[in-house]
């Protein structure tokens, strides 16, 4: 048997341990507050000047996504209903996306009940709820930033987002549907912040699309005013919708020809994501060079 004084000490320790979780709210494992400047070295050609028409390489898309992108006409941005579309949560990180992050702190417990972020492009504001609230019901309206809830996985902040508006995988018309869900991992290492995103879209993807983006802590930096006022710049008949009919988009092959990539490979698909595809690629006929095409 334990001596009485040791039993009392043991009980006291147990009591103290049991009270531990009650006495302090669950504080975050990493601090994300502050101003973050975006690093665009990863996928820079796609993210700064923008992707080229017909470049679907390395994306797990299906035939429906391919057809939608083939029909996409950049004149869409002349339509007043689309002119001021904001970058959705899954793409804002790929766009000019310096961000400001602030915590929403519960006054009583001093625990973080939400992370609040503002992204440079169109100053889109986003809430990531940390208080375990449920996602909205099926018929609730969708928004550019969707509805996000977060939880900690060790030092990573895992965020699940639903109720996103229709968006895009790339700015060349590759679609991401309203049925997609977005899972994100925010990871801080020193002054760097890495975001890994996982998009699952039953409508247009055959496998999850995983991408990463990076920021560097930029104290003192600030976001500039950024506002889009919709107005008619090019007039079109009422009800006009920008699109190419099947077979009429003459720009679709340009990317393959310009870079000498087999035409089949630029059409994308899950297969094109994996290293094994290199073997198949080596056996494919190369497209004509731009100069040969002109002749």
């Amino acid at each position, binding site marked *: 048997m334990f001596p009485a004084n040791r039993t009392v000490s043991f009980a006291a320790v147990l009591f103290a341990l049991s009270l531990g979780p009650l006495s302090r709210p669950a504080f975050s494992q990493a601090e994300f507050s502050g101003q973050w400047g975006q690093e665009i070295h990863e996928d820079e050609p796609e993210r700064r000047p923008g992707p080229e028409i017909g470049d679907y390489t390395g994306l797990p898309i299906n035939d429906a996504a391919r057809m939608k992108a083939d029909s996409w*006409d950049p004149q869409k941005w002349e339509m007043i209903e689309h*002119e001021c*579309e904001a970058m959705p949560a899954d793409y804002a990180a790929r766009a000019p996306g310096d961000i400001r992050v602030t915590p929403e702190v519960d006054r009583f417990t001093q625990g973080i009940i939400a992370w609040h972020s503002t992204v440079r492009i169109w100053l889109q504001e986003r809430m990531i709820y940390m208080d375990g609230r449920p996602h909205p019901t099926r018929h609730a*309206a969708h*928004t550019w930033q969707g509805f996000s809830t977060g939880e900690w996985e060790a030092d990573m902040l895992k965020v699940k987002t639903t109720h996103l508006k229709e968006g895009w995988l790339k700015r060349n018309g590759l679609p991401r549907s309203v*049925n997609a869900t977005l899972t994100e991992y925010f990871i801080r290492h020193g002054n760097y912040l890495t975001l890994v995103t996982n998009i699952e879209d039953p409508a247009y993807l055959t496998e999850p699309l995983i991408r990463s983006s990076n920021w560097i802590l930029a104290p003192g930096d600030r976001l500039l005013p950024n506002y889009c006022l919709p107005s008619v710049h090019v007039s079109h008949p009422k009800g006009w*919708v920008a699109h190419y009919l099947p077979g009429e988009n003459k720009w679709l092959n340009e990317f393959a020809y310009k870079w000498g990539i087999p035409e089949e490979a630029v059409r994308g698909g899950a297969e094109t994501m994996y290293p094994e595809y290199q073997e198949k690629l080596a056996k494919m006929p190369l497209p004509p060079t731009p100069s040969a095409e002109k002749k």
Partner: protein
Amino acid sequence: MNRPRRICKSLSRFLLALVILFVSAGVQSSAQSNPGTLQQGQGAPQQPPRSEEGLEVLHVQGNVYMIAGAGGNITVQIGDNVIVVDSGVTDMSKEVLAAIQKLTTKHVLFIINTSDDWDHVGGNETLSKAGWALPDSGLNPIRVDTSSLLPGNLRAGASIIAHNNLLDRMSAKDSTVPAGLLPTDTYSNDDWKLYNGEAVFITHPNNAHTNGDSYVLFRKSDVISTGDIVTLESYPVINEKTGGSITGVLNALNQILDLMVPKENEEGGTYVVPGHGRVCDRNDIANYRDMVTIVRDRIQSLIRKGMTLQQVQAAKPTLDYDPLYGTTTGSWTTNMFVEAVYRELSKNEASSGPARKITKNNRKKNGGGR
């Protein structure tokens, strides 16, 4: 030494009594809250439980709510009284009424039907009976029943408003629609205006989903209830037998877009309660309009190439939208939609003369793309 033992014994007895008390109370409350179990021995049919909890009730904006899960979406506007746009299926009408009564103690004064589909008019009678009639009671058979006098000499029987074409069809000789579901107050012009704490505009678009459609704008709340002109869970249902057309659907969608004003970044602002599917803003309606226009243009171009219906269907002109709107089963399949569009456009092509070559100019005249 015996005293602590006695205390322990009394304490354990007390705890045992408490446990017995809780367990018996739990059994009682479980029996009370689950009457279905009591009915099992009585041979009562075992229907799955249906309650207003099965419905999804959303606050859209201002004075307007949406109830989903009872067939077509139902719009509820609470002003001086209550206006309901569409009433869902008959089987769910009691649950719908209970859901409305949870939102407000005010009475339904008007039920507006956007079309005569069974999943939009089925609850007319139940909701009307629970509502109030205007003093100058009209055709409503519910109002003729003098036993339904309410305090203050008001009569039960809310008005059921619809376009006149709807009443004509629902009350036709061969119609099997029960009298209690029929519209009681109709309009024949392009619109009708009401007031219920805010201006309410009822508009009739020509030959869209049917020839008797209405859509309703609640001006102050900034919400439009469109009925099946917008169905986010399928391609637009074009009921040719009742005068529907893709041309009419597109005209109506463009009219509705004209009424909508978004907030910053093309989000929020005017909201739409569609016939089926989620609450929408202008961007959602524009995407839906774009889809209908693009599919229309593709089918038209295939017709002009001389393709038969089978060839057009084999060309899959809806492929990119099928994951969102298409289906191969049910009452409105993708093939049925393509066929309806094909038939209408073929007729138009035939009446407008020989096939024309598509040029950038004539496509733009039709509201199409490149």
